[in-house]
């Protein structure tokens, strides 16, 4: 009545358990490191690690905020310019108005937090698409920074503001306090997102906003909270940037929105919200940083660096996808 069954070759397709989301970026990062180690004998040193961490420190902190926002199915185009304004406020108040650095920093953080909260209000109360709200904010904050600073860089900062740019020696490498702060904030964000109730609400909101609303999560409050927290983080990023550069730069932050989104998405966070992991974002930021340092060490011309970075980004995520399909 029936034919002899012949086994079909095992095929692995269709939906899979979305486990180990940070494994893919990790593999990509390791592969990149191995590759660059073959290209330059200066690569596999603790200095390189210190350098990468230092260079990604402020974008990394921006990317924490960006990840929070993306997890709610949002996007923040204004992160970089909010950071720039924060930096200008801090440096102008401290270096030109002569305010004590602590007060200047508090004022800067207050402003960036407030701007983040405005984003949140526009998105939750007026129900603007996050792309539009933060794009509008980008223009407003960018112009405000130029007007407030009269397009002038502020230098001669009080030494306290340079603190995050300085660091401590560990072996032959100097790790900046700014990068330590970044790592610390990644830890805090990880704890918040995975171990606390409000953290899980962020995921729920991005995963199924209607379900979040129906289960009684105060979605408006969560959204405003997320954008305001992101704003606060942008302020901290400003502080790290100020310490790193040693000046208040009104032109900072114009491309950092794309960079922070890239870090999050490279790290496996979905732009549709509710799926992702802030430690993945750290890996994503490090991948970009490693590419940049590695390509310079390998002596690649700057235009070709852009080219190769493009190829490597695609390869990194393709590896990730393939490793998932195997898993």
């Amino acid at each position, binding site marked *: 009545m029936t034919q002899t069954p012949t086994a079909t070759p095992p095929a692995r397709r269709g939906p899979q358990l979305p486990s180990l989301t940070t494994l893919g970026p990790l593999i990509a990062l390791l592969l990149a490191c191995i590759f660059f180690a073959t290209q330059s004998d200066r690569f596999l040193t603790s200095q390189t690690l210190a350098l990468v961490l230092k260079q990604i420190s402020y974008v990394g902190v921006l990317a924490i905020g960006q990840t929070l926002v993306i997890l709610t199915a949002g996007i923040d185009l204004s992160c970089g310019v909010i950071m720039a304004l924060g930096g200008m406020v801090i440096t102008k108040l401290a270096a030109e108005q002569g305010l004590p650095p602590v007060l200047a920093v508090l004022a800067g953080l207050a402003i960036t937090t407030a701007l983040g909260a405005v984003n949140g209000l526009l998105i939750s109360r007026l129900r603007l698409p996050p792309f539009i709200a933060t794009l509008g904010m980008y223009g407003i904050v960018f112009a405000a920074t130029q007007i407030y600073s009269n397009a002038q860089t502020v230098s001669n900062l009080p030494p306290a503001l340079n603190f995050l740019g300085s660091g401590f020696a560990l072996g032959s490498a100097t790790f900046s306090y700014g990068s330590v702060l970044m790592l610390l904030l990644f830890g805090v964000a990880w704890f918040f997102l995975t171990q606390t109730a*409000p953290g899980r*609400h962020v*995921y729920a909101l991005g995963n199924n906003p209607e379900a979040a609303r*129906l*289960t*009684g999560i105060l979605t408006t409050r969560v959204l405003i909270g997320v954008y305001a927290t992101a704003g606060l983080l942008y302020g901290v990023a400003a502080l790290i940037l100020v310490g790193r550069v040693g000046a208040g730069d009104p032109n900072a932050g114009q491309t950092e929105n794309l960079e922070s989104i890239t870090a999050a998405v490279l790290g496996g966070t979905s732009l549709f919200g*509710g799926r992702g992991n802030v430690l993945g974002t750290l890996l994503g930021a490090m991948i970009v940083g490693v590419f940049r340092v590695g390509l310079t060490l390998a002596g690649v011309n700057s235009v070709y660096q852009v080219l190769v970075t493009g190829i490597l980004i695609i390869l990194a995520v393709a590896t990730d996808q393939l490793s998932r399909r195997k898993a």
Partner: protein
Amino acid sequence: MTAAPHLTPAPTGPARPLVMEARGLVKRYGHVTAINGADFELRPGEIMAVIGDNGAGKSSLIKALSGAVVPDEGQIFLDGQPISIRSPIEARRHGIETVYQDLAVAPAMTIAENLFLGREILKPGPLARTFRILDKKRMLEEAVRYMQDLQFAIKSMSQPVETLSGGQRQGVAVARSAAFARHVVIMDEPTAALGVRESNMVLDLIRKVRDKGLPVILISHNMPHVFEIADRVHVHRMGRRAALLDPRRISMADTVSVMTGAIKPEELSADVLAH
């Protein structure tokens, strides 16, 4: 019209105050009027079944009662007091818990997380309370308990809900509502996707909730279930209440006829009506 013999005195009498009442609710979506002047009432400790054709407006009605939707007109009373439930959070504050027909789960989150969404168990201690740190271990344990009560064979409570079968997913939503209600439980077709055994467990659960003294609103298309469990039957037709029937006095066939409009409510003899 055959009426079942009057076996027991009606458990609820007109003298007892209503837990929930709605009068003249209206909800329009563009040209569609989903609720068209609907009335509703619920007595303490009763199981009120709401039945009706597809699209009759049952889900819309209970969405209005649970704050998921704000009606355009009409008034809702809770324990005799006029209230306005303008959001699900307000409904929850009033102790109303709801299973929605489309389940309202976060697919990427685990079963345990979904069960406790919005009412997570926190670790003890002031620090943990301030930062609202989750007690994941206890949440997992409790989740296992709830789901075992319903006899669902689910391997792990830390599985994302999107990996569950349709019925298992519904089980999660049902367990959630029953666990947290303090005043009223509303269930919109809680057994639609459930197997025979699992359905029976849910019916048991509903009885247990009722026995705790909480009234239950049960929407169902499954007439045997309705007749097995309901104290009164609210027949919904074209966006409003067509009749309020006593399932101990009316036959299933007649009920279906009222529901589909084959029998006009006016044609019913008074003794099959619930009061």
